C-alpha cells in the first residue's frame, strides 16, 4: 500500500463570507496522478494554493511530505512545484529567461540546466521561439511555458492547475504524455481540471469536489461503476421481443432496468456491461432471436458528478 505524500486534514479557506474550501480531507499517494475534478469555483485552485503555501488556511492543515504547510511552509515548498492556471510571466521576458531563472531558483546545477531547458523547450514546441518576448505569444504558448516550468523543475510533488486549457488537441496529448513521463520519473502529480476527458485519461484516481467539499475519490473506473445502471447496452433485434423475454433480461445479474423503445429495440441499463454482454447475446441466440446490432456506452465522469450533485458540471458552473 503506497504511503500518502500529501495529507489534507480539514482544510478550510474562507474569503470573508465565502467558504472556498470547506473542511476538505484527502490523501494523495506517492507516485500517483490524482485528478482534482470540479466546476469553476469548486475550490480546486484555492486548495492548490494552500498546498504551495501561497494562501494560509483559515482552518485545518495539510502535510506535504512530512511538513505541515502551516508550521513549516519553507520546507514544504522545497518538495513542491506548481504550474498555474493563468501563466505567471512578465510580458517583457523570453521563454529561455523565464525557464533558466526558474531552474536556477529550483537549484538545478548549471551543467544540467542547459540540457534540460533545451529538451523541455523542444518538447513543448517553443525551441524556435525561445528568445522571443512572450508578449507576442498566444494564450496557448504562454500556457506551455507554465507547464514547461514544472518539467524543468521535476519536483517531488508537481501541482498542475488546468494544464491544457487554451491548448489545441495535439498539444494536449503532448502535455499529457509529458505529465505521465514526469510521474514515471518519480513525481507525484496533483492535477486540477474541469475537463472530464482529461481527468479520465490521465488520473490514477479522481477526487470530485463541489462547493469546496470532497464528494468522492476513487479510480475513474470504480467511480463510473459506482453509478447504479450507469452502463447502457442498446440492442436492435431481428424480430420483436415478447414481454416474457424482457422479464428474463431484467432478471439477469447486474441489470437495473430494461426499456423497450421499439418492439425490436431494447435499452438495457446495467453495471459492468462488459461482463453481462456475453450473457445477453447468449440469451437471445438461445431464444432464436437474431441480433442486428449492439451498442455499449459507459457513463462518463460527468454522470458521476451528476449522480453525486444532481447537476452536470456545466450546470454547476452556471450556478
Amino acid at each position, binding site marked *: 500500500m503506497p504511503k500518502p505524500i500529501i495529507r489534507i486534514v480539514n482544510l478550510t479557506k474562507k474569503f470573508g463570507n465565502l467558504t472556498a474550501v470547506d473542511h476538505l480531507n484527502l490523501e494523495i499517494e506517492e507516485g500517483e496522478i490524482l485528478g482534482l475534478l470540479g466546476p469553476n469555483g469548486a475550490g480546486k485552485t484555492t486548495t492548490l494554493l494552500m498546498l504551495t*503555501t501561497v494562501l494560509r488556511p483559515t482552518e485545518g492543515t495539510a502535510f506535504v511530505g512530512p511538513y505541515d504547510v502551516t508550521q513549516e511552509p519553507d520546507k514544504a*515548498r522545497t518538495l513542491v*512545484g*506548481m504550474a*498555474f492556471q493563468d501563466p*505567471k510571466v512578465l510580458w*517583457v521576458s523570453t521563454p529561455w529567461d523565464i525557464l533558466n*531563472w526558474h531552474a*536556477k531558483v529550483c537549484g538545478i546545477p548549471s551543467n544540467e540546466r542547459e540540457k534540460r531547458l533545451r529538451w523541455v523547450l523542444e518538447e513543448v514546441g517553443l525551441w524556435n521561439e525561445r528568445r522571443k518576448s512572450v508578449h507576442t505569444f498566444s494564450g496557448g504558448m504562454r500556457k506551455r511555458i507554465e507547464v514547461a516550468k514544472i518539467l524543468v523543475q521535476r519536483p517531488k510533488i508537481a501541482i498542475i492547475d488546468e494544464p491544457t486549457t487554451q491548448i489545441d488537441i495535439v498539444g494536449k496529448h503532448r502535455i499529457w504524455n509529458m505529465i505521465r513521463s514526469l510521474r514515471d520519473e518519480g513525481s507525484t502529480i496533483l492535477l486540477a481540471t474541469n475537463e472530464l476527458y482529461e481527468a479520465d485519461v490521465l488520473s490514477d484516481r479522481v477526487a470530485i469536489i463541489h462547493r469546496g467539499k470532497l464528494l468522492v475519490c476513487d479510480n475513474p473506473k470504480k467511480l463510473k461503476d459506482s453509478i447504479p445502471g450507469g452502463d447502457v447496452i442498446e440492442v436492435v433485434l431481428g424480430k420483436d421481443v415478447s414481454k416474457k423475454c424482457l422479464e428474463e433480461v431484467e432478471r439477469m445479474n447486474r441489470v437495473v432496468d430494461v426499456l423497450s423503445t421499439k418492439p425490436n429495440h431494447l435499452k438495457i441499463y446495467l453495471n459492468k456491461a462488459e461482463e453481462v454482454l456475453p450473457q445477453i447475446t447468449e440469451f437471445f441466440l438461445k431464444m432464436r432471436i437474431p441480433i442486428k446490432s449492439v451498442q455499449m456506452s459507459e457513463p462518463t465522469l460527468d454522470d458521476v458528478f451528476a449522480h453525486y450533485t444532481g447537476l452536470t458540471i456545466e450546470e454547476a458552473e452556471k450556478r
Partner: protein
Amino acid sequence: MAVKAILYIMERDLRYFFRYKWWLAGMVSMNLADLFIMAVVYTRMVDPKIGNYFLFFSPGITITALFAAAFMIGREINREIRREISHYMLSLPIKRWELAFGRVLAGAVRGIIYMIPLLLTTLAVTALLAGNVPSALEILTIILALFLISIGTSGLSITIAVSTTSFEKYVTTRGVVYYVLFFCSTVFYPLKFIESVMPQAFALIAKYNPLSCGADLARSFLLRNQSIELFMPLDLMVFALIFASAALFAYMKIMQK
C-alpha cells in the same frame, strides 16, 4: 543557499530593470535636462544669498533620480500582485525572508545604478564650477549614504505596494509620499529658506527628512559649504533599517493571505 537565493531574486529584478534600457536612458536625459535647463534658469532667478543654485541643485537632482529609480520596484510588485504573478514568487522553493530581502536589495541597487550617471555629472559640474574634487573616501561615503537612502526608498515602496489593495490606492499613496518627502526637504531649497517661509513643523520635517540628509551630506563633500552633523548618517541608517524591516514584514505577512 541564502546568499544564492537572494542573488537570484536580485538578478531577476535587475534583468527587468535593464529590459527598459531605452526608457531609462530617456529618464536620465530628462534628469540631466532638469539640471542643465531648469537649474541654469533658476540660478538667474533665485535670491543670490542662497548662492549658486545650479551647484546647490546638482546633488539634489541626484537624490531625486535615486529616489525615483529605487521606488520603481514597488510599482512592479504592485503589478505582480494585481496579475497574481506574486503567487508564483511565493510558491518558489526559497525562504520568504530571502525573497523579500532580495527584492529590497534589488530595488536599492537599481536606484544606485540609475543614479550613477547623474552623480558623475554632479562630480564633473562641482569640480569645474566650484573647483572641489572629493577624495575617493569621500565619494565612497557619498555612495554609501545614497545606498542607505536607496534601501529605505526601496523598502518604503515595497511596503506601500504590498499594503495597498488596488492600483489607484497605490498610485495615490505613492503621490502623497513623493510630495511630502520632496516638499519638506532640502533637495530643492536650503533649510534656511524653508525656516523663513514655512511653518516650523515643516522645517523640522525637512531637517530630519532622509532625502535632506542625503542631499546635504553629498553637498558637504562636493561643495564644502556645510558641515556634516552626526544625526545625518544616523538618520539614513534608521530610515534604511525601518523601511527594509517594514518591507520584509509586509512581504512575509501581508502577501500570504
